[in-house]
Structures are given as structure tokens and as C-alpha cells.
């Protein structure tokens, strides 16, 4: 009995953190039933992850932008433009992929720093500064693709970013039909997860902080392992882990680490929480603004390349409305526009939620106009939920 009580209490207390996962679970279960299982087929899930990659990276960057009380509307067309630059670099300048990718990322950082300059140095509100950016990059994209129209990218290694999968272990007779390297990575991740959970629990106990009871802790671990196992198994049943998924995971891990474990992360959240206090604590609010928008530019470049690679071309309208999808994903994931609150992992889940909606509704054959309205409703509901649970003391 006490066991169930603890579960309920735990859910109540952490409703903010778990709410999103529950919502995601409900959405997935609904679509699984409504599409007779097509939604959760290996092929579709794999596809879904590839579709959301370019939004997820943007959402992660956007999280930090919103945390420091700004917004960036320019990222959509900036992504489109940088994708076009990548295409031009590959097809017209004939640069190798290994050079193009870092080069475009540097361009991205540079573009982000320009945005930051207008905000930090000239004090223009980020909404206005990036609205201007929206116009400028839209124009730049048109101009870049003016002569050629859509630029087809005939480069296989570049196109693998958005369409390819990691190679498999050369063991044709072992577990046929499953992607062995994906399974192996899943196992490694599971072990790493269990070890880190146990050590963090031990550490908390050493400082007599509140921890879950032993049985609850085991339940949580088992649950997470089942989840991880299910995802791994589903992915291994198709082509395995895609390069897009690898990139998104890597970005998420790096940003999660940066925001939760480092100096820089602390400074970012301090600036978001109270800029005046942060400044007086010796943190340069301007410097943080440059860093956050620089990182946004970097991720925008990545997003643009993922998208171009996925389409195997740079189009004249690439990036349209990406910024809004990214902002929506971040809000669904629990960032607060009041500043100082929001996790990158939350935004990743937010991106998955939003993409699941699109993907599931597509499978069900729901028309696009209804899709927009449903997504709008979910966004509002998510934020209402967030605000309501935040108030409780």
C-alpha cells in the first residue's frame, strides 16, 4: 500500500518533470491504436526521429535563448540560408564535406554573433533584431538560390547526415534482422545510465538529501531500462540508429552537460534568473548574450545542413517556419519566458511531442489545416499545464 502511495506522491511532486513524458506516452499510445500499430513500427519511429532532427537541434539552442529572456525569430531562414551555403560550397566551390561542415558551422556562429551584437551592444530588443534577421536571411536565401533554383546535392556522404544509418557490425549470422551495433550501443547506454543513477543516489544519501525509497528507485530504473530497451529494439528492427539521431543525441548530451554541470551553464541561468544580480555578481550579461546567440547560430547551421541533407538539396523555401516549431518545442518542453527556467532535455522531448503529432496525424490522413489547429491547441495546453504546476507551492 505504502508503495502505491509513494508512487502517487512522487507523481504529484514531480508532475512538472513527468507530465511531459506522460503526455508523450499518451500521444504515442493514441496514434499506435489509431493507425493499427503503423505509428510505432520500426520504420516509422526511425523516420520520425529523422524528421525531427533539424527542429530538435534548433529547439535546444532556442531553450537557452529563451532562458536568458530573449527570442530568436531568424533561425528558420538562417538555417535555410546556411543549408544553401553548404550546397553551394559542395557543388560550386567543390569543397570536401569534411571542410564544408565545420565551415558552415563557423558561418553560423558568426551570424549568431552578429545578432548578439545588435542586442547586446546596441540594445535592440531581440524580437525586433531577429525579426529583421528573418527578413534579411529570407532575402539572402532567395538570392543564393536565385540563379539555380533548387540546388541538388549529389554528395553521398553529406546526404548521409539526414538519411543514412550507422554501419552494422560485420556478423551476418548473429541475430539476423537486427542491427547489432545499435543493440550494443543500447546496452552500453543502459549500463551507463544505471551506474550514474546509483552513484548519484549514493552521493545524495551521503549528504542526507531526500532520495527515493529503495523499491521506488528500482521501479524507476526498471521503467527507464524498459523504455530504453524498447527504443533500442524498435530502432534495431529497422536500419538501426540514424546519423541524425546520433547527432541529436550528441548535441543533447553536450548541452545537457554544459547547462547542468558547468560554470557557463550556471552563468546562463543566473543571467536568465536575474540579470542585475548576475551582473553585480561579476557575470557579464553581454558576454553570455554573445555566447548564447553564438551557440544558437552554430545549431542553426547544423539544422540547416541536416535539412538540406535530408532533402538532398537546398530549396528556395528551406527553413520556413522552423523558428516557430523550435519555439513551440521549447515551450512544450517547459521553458519559461520569464527567464531562468528550462531544460534542454525538456525541449528535446517537446520536439518529439510536436513531431509525433505531425507524423501521427499524417499517417491518419488528417488534413493539414486541422493539423495546425491541433498543434496550436497542444502548445497552449502544454503551457497552461506548465504554468499551473509552477504556481503550486
Amino acid at each position, binding site marked *: 500500500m505504502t508503495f502505491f502511495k509513494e508512487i502517487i506522491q512522487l507523481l504529484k511532486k514531480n508532475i512538472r518533470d513527468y507530465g511531459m513524458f506522460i503526455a508523450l506516452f499518451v500521444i504515442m499510445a493514441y496514434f499506435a491504436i489509431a493507425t493499427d500499430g503503423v505509428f510505432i513500427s520500426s520504420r516509422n519511429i526511425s523516420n520520425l526521429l529523422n524528421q525531427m532532427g533539424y527542429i530538435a537541434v534548433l529547439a535546444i539552442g532556442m531553450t537557452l535563448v529563451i532562458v536568458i529572456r530573449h527570442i530568436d525569430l531568424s533561425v528558420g531562414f538562417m538555417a535555410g540560408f546556411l543549408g544553401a551555403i553548404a550546397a553551394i560550397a559542395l557543388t560550386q566551390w567543390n569543397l570536401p564535406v569534411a571542410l564544408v561542415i565545420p565551415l558552415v558551422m563557423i558561418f553560423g556562429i558568426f551570424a549568431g554573433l552578429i545578432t548578439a551584437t545588435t542586442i547586446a551592444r546596441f540594445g535592440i530588443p531581440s524580437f525586433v533584431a531577429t525579426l529583421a534577421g528573418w527578413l534579411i536571411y529570407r532575402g539572402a536565401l532567395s538570392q543564393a538560390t536565385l540563379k539555380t533554383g533548387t540546388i541538388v546535392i549529389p554528395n553521398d556522404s553529406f546526404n548521409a547526415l539526414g538519411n543514412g544509418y550507422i554501419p552494422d557490425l560485420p556478423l551476418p549470422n548473429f541475430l539476423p534482422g537486427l542491427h547489432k551495433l545499435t543493440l550494443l550501443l543500447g546496452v552500453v547506454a543502459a549500463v551507463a545510465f544505471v551506474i550514474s543513477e546509483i552513484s548519484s543516489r549514493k*552521493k545524495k544519501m551521503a*549528504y542526507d538529501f531526500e532520495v527515493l525509497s529503495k523499491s521506488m528507485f528500482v521501479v524507476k530504473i526498471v521503467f527507464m531500462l524498459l523504455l530504453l530497451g524498447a527504443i533500442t529494439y524498435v530502432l534495431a528492427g529497422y536500419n538501426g540508429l540514424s546519423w541524425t539521431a546520433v547527432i541529436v543525441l550528441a548535441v543533447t548530451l553536450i548541452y545537457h552537460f554544459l547547462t547542468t554541470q558547468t560554470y557557463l551553464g*550556471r552563468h546562463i541561468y*543566473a543571467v536568465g*534568473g536575474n540579470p542585475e544580480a548576475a*551582473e*553585480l*555578481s561579476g557575470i557579464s550579461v553581454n558576454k553570455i548574450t554573445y555566447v548564447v546567440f553564438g551557440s544558437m547560430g552554430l545549431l542553426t547551421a547544423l539544422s540547416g545542413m541536416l535539412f538540406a541533407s535530408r532533402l538532398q538539396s537546398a530549396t528556395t523555401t528551406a527553413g520556413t517556419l522552423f523558428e516557430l516549431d523550435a519555439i513551440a518545442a521549447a515551450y512544450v518542453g517547459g521553458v519559461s519566458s520569464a527567464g*531562468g*527556467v528550462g531544460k534542454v532535455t525538456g525541449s528535446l522531448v517537446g520536439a518529439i511531442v510536436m513531431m509525433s503529432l505531425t507524423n501521427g496525424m499524417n499517417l491518419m490522413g488528417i488534413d493539414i489545416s486541422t493539423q495546425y489547429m491541433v498543434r496550436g491547441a497542444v502548445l497552449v495546453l502544454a503551457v497552461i499545464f506548465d504554468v499551473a504546476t509552477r504556481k503550486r507551492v
Partner: protein
Amino acid sequence: MSVPILEMKNITKQFPGVKALDDVSFKVERENIHCLVGENGAGKSTLMKVLSGVHPHGSYEGEIYISGELQEYSNTRDSEKAGIAVIYQELALVPEMTVYENVFLGHEIRRGINININETIKQTVEVLKKVGLDVNPSTKVKYLGIGKQQLVEIAKALSRDAKLLVLDEPTSALNESDSENLLNLLRELKKEGVTSILISHKLQEVISVADKVTVLRDGQSVITLDGHNGEVNEDVLIKHMVGRSIENIYPDREKKPFGDVVFEVRDWSAYDPRRGRNLLEDVNIKLKKGEIVGITGLMGAGRTELALSLFGNPVGYQIKGEMLINGKPVSFSNPHDAIEAGLAYVTEDRKGNGLILIQDVKSNITIANLDRITEGGVINENAEIKDAREYTESLDIKTPSINQKVLYLSGGNQQKVSLAKWLYVQPDVMILDEPTRGIDVGAKYEIFTIMNSLVEQGMSIIMISSELPEILGMADRIYVVSSGRITGELQKEEADQETIMRFATM
């Protein structure tokens, strides 16, 4: 005997991990000034928030009666309708709005669908006169100092014809004469039939004004004393508040000769381009190793501006003059430089620019000196927890855990977190701006003791304060500031209230 205007029965209020009120009963007679005292975190503000509906009916146990009738408020509007006006410890004004807009915010005087601005201004002028505030009602509130904002807040409550006025530490930000004005105002209002509940840490004013005093300790009401039969004096109050008596609130310090001059400014002037006027003119200050220098003056004399201009000038004043640390000229382009050079600045306005309220105690303590716990940019969580615990314990910060958000701490404990944050920087020179604002006697004593031990260890302190008794009690040397200039410098021995006031009004 008539029915009491307010009776709160067996109020219990629980927060996660804290029982803020434990079966408190509290009775206020009509046309009284009833004071509520107690240590930081005793539950005073919480009790008033229960009364005003900030904590709505259902979130606490117990009953509230107004003039004998049971009340169940679900929000502050309900309590306002019942004639209760509360001035919270945290100011609730809209900085971008004018004084008159703020005073009548939420109950605007209308003509048709328009706001009747002339009438609003007229009534605002009247009510401002009542609180003794002489400002143009069309000034934006953000241009007023914290003291004047407090008066606007009081005017706002008065404009609502409240029958029961609750003031949560209204005088903590006011100087002596403004405080005295306010107390007189409460006495006036009493004659006009308004009952007041006054929360204060300034025991002298409690003694002078109270008809009744209720003492809270650890969420329980300890005793209610009558203000008229001589049973209320400072010692009695302190004993009930703290549970022991404190001999001398300004603890003695070992007399040691001071060291060399560690910090000096020469001909320091600051011009504020936004306000278009000089804030400071030709300020000269010296601070020796192991010395506590007091800086006092009236509200608005430029003391906080001086501190900001010294501490890396984050607001962007245009500065002339020279600053020397250990005899060497230095110049800071931001607060970071100042911290690196060994300065720390505990701000006056802890909520505005001192603390990050939505973050926990631990992160607030370490934020100004993360270097101490980072290696290669990565924060060592163990070290952080250890340090935060140490500072929380040594300053006796009352919090259920170092993971508690600072937002949920009582005012005094927030102030201690602010102090802990700057002690964590291990500075050579510490500027304390109104360090005891909103702090109970026990905690004041602790902070003074800490200051003493800091200077004994060789730190030097600049203490900015409008509280003359504490300046006189703690400072070795005193500078008096008036209109941005130093008008007097006094040794401890030659200083007294009258002399200081003479310089302060020069």
C-alpha cells in the same frame, strides 16, 4: 467589551518541509495599533498572507473572523472587499507607471469608460500629503528611491478606505524622520477609526506606538503584551522573541591599531547621463585594514550610487576621479574586475539586484565565486554542497535545505544568503549597503558579530546605513553624505546623532 475587529483562531500553515504557523491564535481590538514581532522566519508575514487571502482558504487550517463573522477568502480581492489592506514586505508597485496610476491601480476613478485623470491626480495629491510624500504624482515610480516607493505603497492602501491596515515592515526602508512620520500617521488614522497591524524589527518604534504587541516564535504565538501598562520594553521583547536575552546588541570588538590604507578614492565624481545630473561630487574616502567605516546620510543622498560607482560601475555613470587599492591606482570596467581586485558589494535591494530568487540557496551562495568549486569549467557538486552547508550553518540561515529556492525564505534569511554569497568571495574590502534591513535583533547581533570577526581577521568594511544607532554602534569612523558630497567626517568618539544629522542636512 466590543467584538474584536479581527480574530484568527488556531491557524496552522504548512509548506513543504516547513511548518510556518503552528496553531496560532491572534486577536486584534478595534482602533488599536497592534504590533507583531518575532525573529526572521517566525511566521509573521505568513500569518498576514493567510489573513489577506494570498494563501487562500483551504490551504491552511483554522478560522478567521472579522468583526465576529467567519471569513473565507479565496484571493486578495476578497479580503480587500472586507476592508483589509496589506502592504507587503515586497513592494508591489509597477515601476513603469506613474505614482497616481499606481495609487489607483485596480480601482481607477472613472468617468464613463475613461479614467478621470484630473480627479485621480487630485486625490493622489491629497493622499500623498497624508503620508508626507512630496513628489509630482506624474513621476514614474521607477525614478523614486526605495523609501519613497514605500510611501507610495502606503498611500495606495490608504486610498482604498481600509478599516484594517496591515503593514509588513513598512519602516525598514525609511529613515528616522520618515519613520516617525509614518508612525504619527498610524496614530492619526487610529483616531479616524482605522486599525493597524504593524510588523517591525525596530523594537523602539514598536514600544513607542503599540497598543498591543504579539510575539511569534518558530510559528507559534508566544505571548500578547499590553503596550500601556509598562510591561513592554526592549529586553522583554527580545527575551520572548529569541528565547534568551542579549546584553549588548553592538558586540565589543578587540581594539587593535588599524593597518595601512587598503582602499581609497580621491576626487570621485559621478554623472548620470540618464538623469542628466551629478550624483556624486569630489568624494574622498579612505579605508584602513581592519577598519569599519560607516557611510550615512539621508535617503537619496547618493550612498548606493557611490557604492555602485565604486563596484565596477554597472549602471554606466560617467566617472571622474581616482581609486587606489593598497596604494596602487586601479580602474574597473565591470563588477567582475572589482571582485577580482578584492571588493564585494552586498546590495541594498536584495530582491532586485542581490539574489536570484528562483534559484536555490546553494547556487546563490556560490554564484559570485564559482572559481572556488570549478575545475576546468566543470562544477564540483560535492564541493559546492559542502561549502554551501558550511556557510548556511555559520550564518545560521534558516532553510529546510540548501536546495530550497531563495524565494521561499523569510526576508531576514534572504539577507543572510546575500551576505553568505559575498563572504564566499573572500574579499578584502566589503561594502555592506543597509546590511540589517528587515533583520531581527538576534540576527542583527549575529551579523554584527560576524562583521567584528571579519575585521579582526584583517578585512575592511564600508557599512552604508541610515540607522544612526547602528552606525554609531559599529563604525570606527563615519562619513556623512549629503546631496552627493561628503559633508562630514567623524571619529567614533566625536560622533553622536545630532552632529550627524547636522552634517546630513547640510
